């Protein structure tokens, strides 16, 4: 369960990126986060895994109160989450396999368990051959898939994905969406920021639209675009 109450986020440079956001997501939901570039999607997501602490307001995730929690509890929170970062954030000096393994290593899995889980997940994202490559030896889309693999490998209670298919071709995107839906089917909450209109329209789930830091739409089974908001300019695609 995930709950935000009157959350405000103002960056040190004065930019107010989120204004009075209130939101509840139940365990097992699948949520699309949509909105223009710079609307505040990534900011909202960074609040969820506590890269950012809100200027004001209340956030609760998996029974952690994110404003009250002690610094040393943060790793506990993050271990219950899987996060795909918009800029991947892979460790440059570790191979693909080691990057994914690291997320398991920190929670104390045995080497055998790690080996098996890593092989399995690399297979899922179609990178079994790249296990021993370093991130800078991969294409953009391959790096993104490694980031996805790392986020799902420890079977998190909540999967948070920021634009997980921006560098993927439609066919690979379909494969990744299959995986996310399968995970969601097993009870994992999925929150996914995306600009991909086709995904949102063809795999309908709850849609949250952010604009100028405010939630302007919250619709079960919604479409990517919303006539009222975007009527200034007809979206071409």
């Amino acid at each position: 369960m995930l709950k935000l109450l009157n959350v405000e986020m103002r960056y040190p440079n004065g930019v107010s990126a989120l204004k009075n956001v209130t939101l509840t997501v139940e365990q097992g939901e699948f949520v699309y986060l949509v909105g223009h570039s710079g609307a505040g999607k990534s900011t909202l997501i960074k609040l969820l895994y506590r890269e950012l602490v809100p200027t004001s307001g209340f956030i609760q995730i998996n029974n952690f109160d994110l404003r009250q929690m002690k610094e040393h509890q943060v790793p506990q929170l993050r271990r219950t989450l899987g996060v795909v970062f918009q800029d991947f954030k892979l460790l440059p000096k570790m191979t693909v396999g080691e990057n994914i393994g690291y997320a398991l290593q920190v929670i104390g899995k045995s080497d055998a368990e790690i080996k098996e889980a890593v092989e399995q997940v690399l297979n899922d994202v179609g990178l079994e051959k790249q296990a021993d490559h370093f991130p800078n030896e991969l294409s953009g889309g391959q790096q993104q898939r490694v980031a996805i693999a790392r986020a799902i490998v420890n079977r998190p209670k909540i999967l948070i994905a920021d634009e997980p298919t921006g560098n993927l071709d439609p066919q690979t995107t379909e494969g990744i969406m299959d995986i996310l839906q399968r995970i969601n089917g097993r009870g994992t909450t999925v929150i996914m920021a995306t600009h991909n209109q086709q995904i949102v329209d063809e795999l309908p789930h709850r849609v949250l639209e952010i604009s100028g830091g405010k939630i302007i739409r919250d619709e079960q089974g919604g479409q990517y675009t919303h006539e009222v908001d975007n009527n200034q300019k007809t979206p071409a695609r």
Partner: protein
Amino acid sequence: MKWITIKRHLRDSLRSLKRNGWMAFAAISGVAVTILLVGISLALVFNVTKLSHDVESDVRVHVLVEPKTTTKQKAKLETELNDLKGVTKVTYSSKANELKKVVSQYGDSFKMFGGDDNPLNDVYTIKATDPEETMAIAKKAAKLDHVAKANYGGDEAKKLFRTMDSVRNWGVGFSVLLLIVAIFLIANTIRITILSRRNEIEIMRLVGATRWYIRWPFILEGAWTGLLGAIVPLVIIDLGYANVFRAVGRQLASSGYSLMTPGQLIWPLNLTLVVVAMLIGAFGAAISMRRFLKV
């Protein structure tokens, strides 16, 4: 900590050291050059300290024997002098012998005072174990029977002691300064390499690693950097010192002074510097990471 965790930290630290290539190499060579400087300087200071003691030990107590003391009385006196606390060696010089010294210093005109005209005294020269005790020995010797006077160069010796003391003080002061500088430089080098890896640390935190889980491999890597950085300069110093010892030793031989033997110097120096380098590397890493692991 579980054994598997320790093993992982060790493996991760070594792997990171290997993969950081040029950066690791630069850090190690920074440590190496610093240790080279510290090692050479400490070897120098240790030897200056030793030599200053050698010079001080050259100060002797001269015990002038009263005229007309019999041979038997002198023998007793010699035993008594030898029994004084802190005395290493007592040597005898007859007044005839003393006169020769005067003649050699002030010219042949003094030869006329040979034989019974000789106004000088027989002299016992005492060497102290510890130069600091010279004065005490002189005082005690003066009180013995048949002793006319016991002196040890007076003001001259006091001045020498003072000079040697200040040589040693400057040496110690300089060593301390140097050690502080070295600690700072090594830690600073490690700090810069860690500053350049803040992204890595950030990512580790984001995927749920605890602070200590992140810290350990960096701390170990710092320690390895210190260790690897210390090895080469210490080998150079060890070999170099053996040579210097041989060369300078020969020069000094005639003067009665001597350098510390390689055996006395090398092991304490190596052990100290390796341990210091590793500790600074480890602590430097730990401290440098604090900033990134706070929030």
